[in-house]
C-alpha cells in the first residue's frame, strides 16, 4: 500500500525483513546500528567457526590428488578404529546413566528434606564439578591405582587385591563422579520451580512418597533432566584427559583424534580430520535427537510457593543422610587427597615421609607465566564472551529476523563440537597464511570464546526473555535512542544474571583443557595445562601444588559469585 513496501528489495533487505507470520508485528527494524552488529557478529562466526570447520572438512576429504572418501572409509574398515567409537559410546552412555542415577535422587533428597550441613554439601558438590576431569583421574590413580593408598591398605588388611582402576572401569568412575554434580545442579533448579501446591494436590489424590517421585516429580523435571543428560553425554563423549591418563589401552574417540595429530608415531592429519568430522556428525545426531525428545516435554513452571524442606523421619532420614554423605564424600575424596599430597614432602618425583611446602616452592619456581596467563587469557576471553553474548542475545530475542536466526543457529554449533576438534580445526585454519595465529595468546582466547559462548548466550537469552519489552519501550517513549535504552535500562536489568553466568564461565575457562592442550605453547601455558604436563611427566608433587592453587582460585571465584548474585542458585 505504501511506497516503502514496494521499494527496491535487495537480498539484504529480504534477510532483514521481519518474518511477519512468526513475528509479533512490532515495528520493523530499520537499518540501524544493530544491523551493523549483526553483520559483525556474523563475520566473526564465519572467520573463527565456519572457516576452521570448512578447513577441517576439506582436510578430511581432500588431498593433493583431489577429492577422496578414503579416510572416512578407512575409519570404518578396521575394528581397531571403530572400536574407539564403540568404546566412547559405551563409556559415555553408561557414565550418563550413572550420573542420572546418582544426581537425580541426590537433588531430590537435598531439596525436599532437611539435610544437615547442606550449605557445605552444596559447595563440595560444586567444587567436584569444577575441577578438570583429569585431576580426578590422576587422583584416583593415587588412591586406587596399582600402588594406590586404598589399594595397599585393603591389600594389607585383607590380603585381597581390588579390581583394576585402569581402563573402562576407571574412566566410568571418574566421569560419573565428575559429572553427576551437573545433574544435581540442573535438577535442583527444576525442583525449585515446582510449586508446592502441585505436590500437595498429588498427595491429596493419594499419590505420595516414591510413587509421587516417579509419577509427578520426575515428569515435571523431565525437560531439565533431558537437558542435563545431553550436557553430561557431550562432556563425557568429548573428554579426553581422563581416558588418556587412566584409560591404559582403552582407546576412546577423542584420544584417537589427538593421537592422529600429535601422537608420537604414525600421525596422519587427513585421517585425524576425518575422525573429527565423524565425531561432529555423531554429536550433531545426538543433539538433534535430544531436541526431538525434548519437544515432547514442552511446558514451563514458575513456583509461587516453592517447596519447603521437610524433616525426614526415622530410618529414611538415616538413609538419605548416609546416601548424601557417601556420594559427596567419594566424589570429593580425590580433590581432598590431591590437596593432602601437595603438602607432602618430596624427593625428586617421589613422595617421602614428612610434610613441607616444598612442592609449592618448586611449583612457583617452575610454572613461569602460568598464573599470569590464566588470568590474562581467561580474563580477556571472559570479557569478550560477556560482551558478545549480550549483543547476540539481544539480536536473537529482540531483533527476530532471518539474519539473526542464522546467528542463533550458528551460536549453538560449538555446543556439539568436542573441544579437541575445536582445537584441531583452529590449528588447521590458522597455521598457514593468510592468517597465522597458532602459538599466540589470541588463538587461545578465540578457542575459549568458541567453547564457552553457547552456554553464556543461552543463559543471556533466558534472562532477556524474562524482561518485558515494555520496559524498553517505556525508555524509548521517554526519548531514549534504541541503543541507549538497551545499555541504560536492559543491560543493568540483566546485570545480576549476566554476572552469575560470568563467574561460572570464569571457572570453566580456567579449568579448560581439551582445546587448550592442542593450541598452547610455552609462552601461553595456563595453570590447568601446567598441571596436566606435570601429571603426565609423573611429577605429582608439583602437580598437586598447582591443582591446589587452582582449587583455591575456584573457591574464591565461587565465594565472589555467591556474594554478588545474592542467590545460591548455580546454573550452567
Amino acid at each position, binding site marked *: 500500500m*505504501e511506497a516503502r513496501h514496494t521499494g527496491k528489495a535487495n537480498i539484504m533487505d529480504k534477510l532483514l525483513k521481519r518474518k511477519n*507470520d512468526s513475528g509479533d508485528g512490532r515495528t520493523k527494524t530499520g537499518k540501524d546500528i544493530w544491523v551493523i552488529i549483526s553483520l559483525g557478529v556474523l563475520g566473526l562466526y564465519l572467520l573463527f567457526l565456519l572457516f576452521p570447520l570448512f578447513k577441517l572438512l576439506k582436510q578430511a576429504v581432500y588431498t593433493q590428488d583431489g577429492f577422496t572418501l578414503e579416510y572416512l572409509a578407512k575409519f570404518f574398515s578396521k575394528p581397531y578404529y571403530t572400536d574407539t567409537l564403540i568404546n566412547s559410546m559405551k563409556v559415555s552412555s553408561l557414565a550418563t546413566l550413572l550420573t542420572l542415577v546418582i544426581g537425580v535422587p541426590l537433588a531430590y533428597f537435598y531439596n525436599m528434606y532437611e539435610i544437615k550441613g547442606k550449605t557445605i554439601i552444596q559447595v563440595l558438590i560444586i567444587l567436584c564439578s569444577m575441577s578438570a576431569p583429569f585431576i580426578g583421574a590422576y587422583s584416583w590413580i593415587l588412591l586406587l591405582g596399582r600402588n594406590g593408598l586404598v589399594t595397599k591398605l585393603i591389600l594389607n588388611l585383607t590380603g585381597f587385591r581390588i579390581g583394576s582402576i585402569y581402563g573402562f572401569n576407571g574412566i566410568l568412575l571418574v566421569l560419573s563422579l565428575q559429572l553427576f554434580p551437573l545433574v544435581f545442579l540442573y535438577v535442583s533448579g527444576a525442583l525449585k520451580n515446582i510449586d508446592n501446591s502441585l505436590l500437595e494436590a498429588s498427595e491429596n489424590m493419594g499419590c505420595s512418597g516414591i510413587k509421587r517421585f516417579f509419577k509427578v516429580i520426575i515428569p515435571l523435571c523431565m525437560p531439565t533432566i533431558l537437558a542435563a543428560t545431553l550436557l553430561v553425554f557431550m562432556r563425557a563423549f568429548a573428554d579426553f584427559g581422563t581416558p588418556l591418563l587412566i584409560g591404559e589401552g582403552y582407546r576412546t574417540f577423542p584420544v584417537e583424534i589427538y593421537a592422529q595429530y600429535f601422537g608420537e608415531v604414525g600421525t596422519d592429519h587427513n585421517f585425524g580430520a576425518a575422525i573429527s568430522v565423524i565425531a561432529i556428525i555423531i554429536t550433531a545426531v545426538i543433539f538433534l535427537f535430544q531436541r526431538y525428545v525434548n519437544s515432547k516435554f514442552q511446558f514451563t513452571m514458575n513456583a509461587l510457593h516453592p517447596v519447603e524442606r521437610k524433616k525426614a523421619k526415622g530410618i529414611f532420614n538415616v538413609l538419605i543422610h548416609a546416601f548424601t554423605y557417601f556420594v559427596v564424600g567419594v566424589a570429593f575424596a580425590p580433590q581432598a587427597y590431591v590437596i593432602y599430597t601437595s603438602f607432602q614432602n618430596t624427593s625428586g618425583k617421589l613422595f617421602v615421609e614428612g610434610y613441607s611446602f616444598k612442592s609449592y616452592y618448586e611449583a612457583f619456581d617452575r610454572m613461569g607465566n602460568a598464573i599470569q596467563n590464566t588470568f590474562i587469557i581467561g580474563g580477556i576471553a571472559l570479557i569478550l564472551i560477556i560482551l558478545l553474548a549480550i549483543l547476540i542475545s539481544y539480536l536473537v530475542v529482540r531483533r527476530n529476523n532471518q539474519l539473526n536466526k542464522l546467528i542463533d543457529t550458528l551460536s549453538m554449533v560449538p555446543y556439539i563440537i568436542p573441544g579437541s576438534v575445536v582445537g584441531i580445526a583452529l590449528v588447521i585454519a590458522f597455521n598457514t597464511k593468510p592468517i597465522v595465529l597458532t602459538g599466540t595468546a589470541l588463538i587461545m582466547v578465540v578457542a575459549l570464546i568458541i567453547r564457552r559462548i553457547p552456554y553464556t548466550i543461552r543463559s543471556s537469552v533466558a534472562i532477556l526473555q524474562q524482561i518485558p519489552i515494555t520496559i524498553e519501550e*517505556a525508555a524509548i*517513549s*521517554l*526519548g531514549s535512542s534504541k541503543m541507549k535504552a538497551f545499555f541504560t535500562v536492559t543491560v543493568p*536489568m540483566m546485570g545480576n544474571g549476566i554476572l552469575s553466568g560470568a563467574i561460572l564461565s570464569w571457572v570453566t575457562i580456567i579449568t579448560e583443557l581439551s582445546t587448550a592442550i592442542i593450541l598452547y605453547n610455552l609462552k601461553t601455558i595456563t595453570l590447568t595445562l601446567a598441571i596436566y604436563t606435570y601429571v603426565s611427566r609423573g611429577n605429582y608433587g608439583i602437580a598437586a601444588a598447582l591443582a591446589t592453587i587452582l582449587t583455591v582460585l575456584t573457591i574464591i571465584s565461587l565465594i565472589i559469585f555467591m556474594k554478588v548474585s545474592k542467590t545460591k542458585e548455580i546454573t550452567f
Partner: protein
Amino acid sequence: MSGVAIKIENAIKRYGNNTIITDLSLDIEEGEFFTLLGPSGCGKTTLLRMIAGFNSIEGGSFYFNDKIINNIDPAKRNIGMVFQNYAIFPHLTVEKNVAFGLKNRKLPKDEIEKETNSILKLMQIESFKDRMPERLSGGQQQRVALARALVIKPDVLLMDEPLSNLDAKLRVEMRSVIKEIQNSVGITTVYVTHDQEEAMAVSDRIAVMKDGDIQHVGTPKDLYQRPANLFVATFIGRTNIVKAKLVVKDNKTIIKFPMGYDIEMDNIVDNEKHDQEIIVSIRPEEFVINEENNEGILADVDDSIFLGLNTHYFVHLDSNEKAEIIQESRIDNSIAKKAKVYLTVKKEKINIFTADGSKNIVKGVKNDGDRYLKKVSGGN
C-alpha cells in the same frame, strides 16, 4: 501542553496473513479523554501501539494535528505512555524513574529536579522518591508510571489498561486520580480498557471496538442510552434481549411482543417503519413491574437480591427467556419468589434493533464513527 488532535485514516494492521485491523478511521480531539473499549482480541491495544510507534503500520495514515507520524521514531513522537505492567525500571529509584525522560531531553540539572519534584508532588508520591520500585504498592507504582509519562510534557498520553493489575477498590480510586490529573493537565489522552464501567467513569468519548472494527464512537451517555447496534447495547451495561415484531398499521408503529403485549412507538426512524422482525433491548431499570392491572409481559419471579438502594429481580418470561429487573428498594416487603408479575417498559428508553442486530432503528443515535462509514460505502 494540550493542542494535539489525533487523526487516523484507513489504518491497516496485519500479522503475517492475519489481518487484525482492516480499515479503521478515527478522530480524537485535542485535550480529549478518549477510550478504546472492547473485548480482548478486538485490536484496541494494537491500535494504541500503532499510535505509540511500537507496532508497524501496514497501511493508512496517522496524524498528530496535520503532521503525519507513520514513520517518526517512537522516541521522537513526544508521547507519554503508561503500560499495563507499568514498565517501571526496577533498578532505578522513584525519582530517577521519573527524571529518566527529562535526562534524555538533556535539560539542565536544576530544571530536571524542579520538574521532577513538582510532578512527584502532584501525584502525591514525593515521600517515596528515594525508594526502589519493588518496595512500592501497586497503586504507588501506578502513580510513578503516570508521573514518569507526564513529566516530559508529552503531546499525547497513551494508557494501556493501566488499572488492570490493581485490586477493585484501588482501581476505583486510581481512575478518579487519572481523571483528575488529565483534567488539570488538559492533555489529549488515549486510554485502552476492556472494563466498560471504567471507560464510562473516565472518558469524554469512547470508541467501542470489536474484531478490529469500530462499532460506535460517542459519549458514555450516547453509548448507554442509544447504542448503535446490538453488540454495543450488550457490551455497555447490562440489558435484556427480547425478540419481537414491528408492525405498521394505520400510521402507527407498534411493537408486538410474543407474549401478547403491544406498545406504540413514536421514535422509530422513518425508513425503518415497515413490518419486520426486531430485537428489543430493555435495560433492567427500563422494566416497570405493573401492579395495577394485567397489562404487560407475564413473568415468573425466580429470585431476588436486595442490594440496599436497589433490588434486583431475576425472572423468566413465558417464552422461557430470562430477564433481570432493577427496582428501587421499597420499605414494605419485596415481591416474593415464584410470584407472577406483569412487566411493562419505559418505552422512551428502550432500544430496538433490526433482526441481525446490526442497526438501532430508534431515533437519536449519535455515532461519530458514522461519517467514515458513509465515506467507505460512498467514496470507496
